[in-house]
């Protein structure tokens, strides 16, 4: 079976995010961009399934500007077979991305789509669940283990009280949590090889999807900042302050 892995180009997780002084958004000029960390885990999982002989082809897809090609190349350098760029300069919301992905799924007919659980820019945590809904497929979100069978997939999910296992009918959607695996680094030869792997270019129009946002951003502001407090010299002083100054003990 084919496995489809949607990968998003986001601000690198090590970058300190700054809000633009005019409140219009976050400053993305000249900041380092990378593949969303959860999507690296998704690519890794797909590759492992292929290496285990359970999948035949791994396709990475990204919806975004021309530069999202770099993100696709990262996935190809890790070992994915080919890429699809759905080119748009608009800010895409999860609903629109899910609709585009639905179009790609209908064309490619993968047995499994593995997404990140959350993009670390919008922190939405929606796209996988939405895609599952639009396709009428089962979903295994926040996965920490994926066990792929012939007609079903068992997914261990990270839930609030611990872990839950669900058995899903295939084809299905899986979204990754951090502990699913440790993604590999691309080797130099693989980075070179990736340059020759094919990337198909599409547009949202090809799938008849209108990407106009449903949410209007009214403002973007810095959160209320916390002042650093005081250093205490001993446990006794700490407990005294917590009791008598802060009143929390």
């Amino acid at each position: 079976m084919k496995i489809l892995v949607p990968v998003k180009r986001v601000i690198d997780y090590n970058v300190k995010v700054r809000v633009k002084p005019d409140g219009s958004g976050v400053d993305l000029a000249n900041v380092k961009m990378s593949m969303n960390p959860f999507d690296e885990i998704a690519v890794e999982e797909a590759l492992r399934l292929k290496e285990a002989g359970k999948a035949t082809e791994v396709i990475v897809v990204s919806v975004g500007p021309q530069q999202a090609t770099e993100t696709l190349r990262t996935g190809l350098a890790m070992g994915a077979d080919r890429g699809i760029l759905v080119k748009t300069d608009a800010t895409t919301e999860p609903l629109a991305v899910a609709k585009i992905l639905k179009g790609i799924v209908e064309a490619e007919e993968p047995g499994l789509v593995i997404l990140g659980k959350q993009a670390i820019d919008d922190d939405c945590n929606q796209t996988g669940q939405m895609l599952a809904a639009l396709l009428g497929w089962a979903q295994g979100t926040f996965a920490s283990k994926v066990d792929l069978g012939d007609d079903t997939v068992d997914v261990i999910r990270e839930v609030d009280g611990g872990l839950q296992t669900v058995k899903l009918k295939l084809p299905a959607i899986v979204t990754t949590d951090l502990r699913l695996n440790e993604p590999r680094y691309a080797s130099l030869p693989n980075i070179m090889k990736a340059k020759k792997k094919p990337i198909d270019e599409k547009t949202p129009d090809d799938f008849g999807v209108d990407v106009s946002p449903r949410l209007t951003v009214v403002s973007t502001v810095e959160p209320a900042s916390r002042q650093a407090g005081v250093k205490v010299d001993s446990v006794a002083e700490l407990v005294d302050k917590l009791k008598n100054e802060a009143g929390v003990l």
Partner: protein
Amino acid sequence: MTTLLVAEHAGGELSDATAKALTAAVALGSDVHVLVAGSDVKPVAESAAALTGAAKVLVTESAELANQLAEPMAALIVDMAGGYDAIVAPATANGKNILPRVAALLDVMQISDVTAVIDAETFERPIYAGNAIQTVKSGDPKKVITVRTSTFASAEAGGSAAIEDVAAPAETGLSEFAGEELSKSDRPELTSAKIIISGGRALGSEEKFQEVIMPVADALGAAVGASRAAVDAGYAPNDWQVGQTGKVVAPDLYIACGISGAIQHLAGMKDSKVIVAINKDEEAPIFQVADYGLVADLFEVLPDLKAAVE
């Protein structure tokens, strides 16, 4: 105008997250109906009916709903959605799993992790791990919202809403519950605890975590949290993780022990009322958000802290 709130429950008990999300749902300005779906959930429905602000409680019982899996839950909610202008759930693992599925079926863009309700269509939510707060206005005819419970107070007891039955949807046959492994603990729950003590990579092993953090937690009656590094290394279970991709907490007192203060960790705890940091590196970023910082070796000072609070 009516709002549907999807209740969260486990082990026959309504979660506090539901009471908090109810406060947000009431802020939308319409009557709130609370949906309790599962099997043997009559006691849960009664608890929900006793919350101030619930105008009505709707109960659906079926075996397929017993574990509140997303596929049947979404089918049920979408069946009922015609009568509602807004659908709300707490942003818990369940809420995050179910509600986007509902939103897509209704062709609505969900608003995730709402931290403030400005009016019935305008909301605040954090983005970039809480490094920015965005105010968004939804143009969708129905609003589908998950609520970050740490920023809303629990609705008080004292209500007496009517309870009505709602028919279960046809089985979806897509997914099946195949087991669970829940952490058992007599300690308070992370998301509703007044005091939390968290340990990081510095603990070094699961044994040390148990030996050093737990006695202090017991002495304080505190819940226990952990950084991702501690969870990844197996020192603490996954459901203890606090942060951007773990649980978001806002207790009266948060004590971070041997945690450096990465932005992804701060995202989950920086709204705590009072923050204490214990770290042997005086330059650790955690001190920038701590009200009280103690530069010390945690293995030396935590036993003293236990003794001092007992």
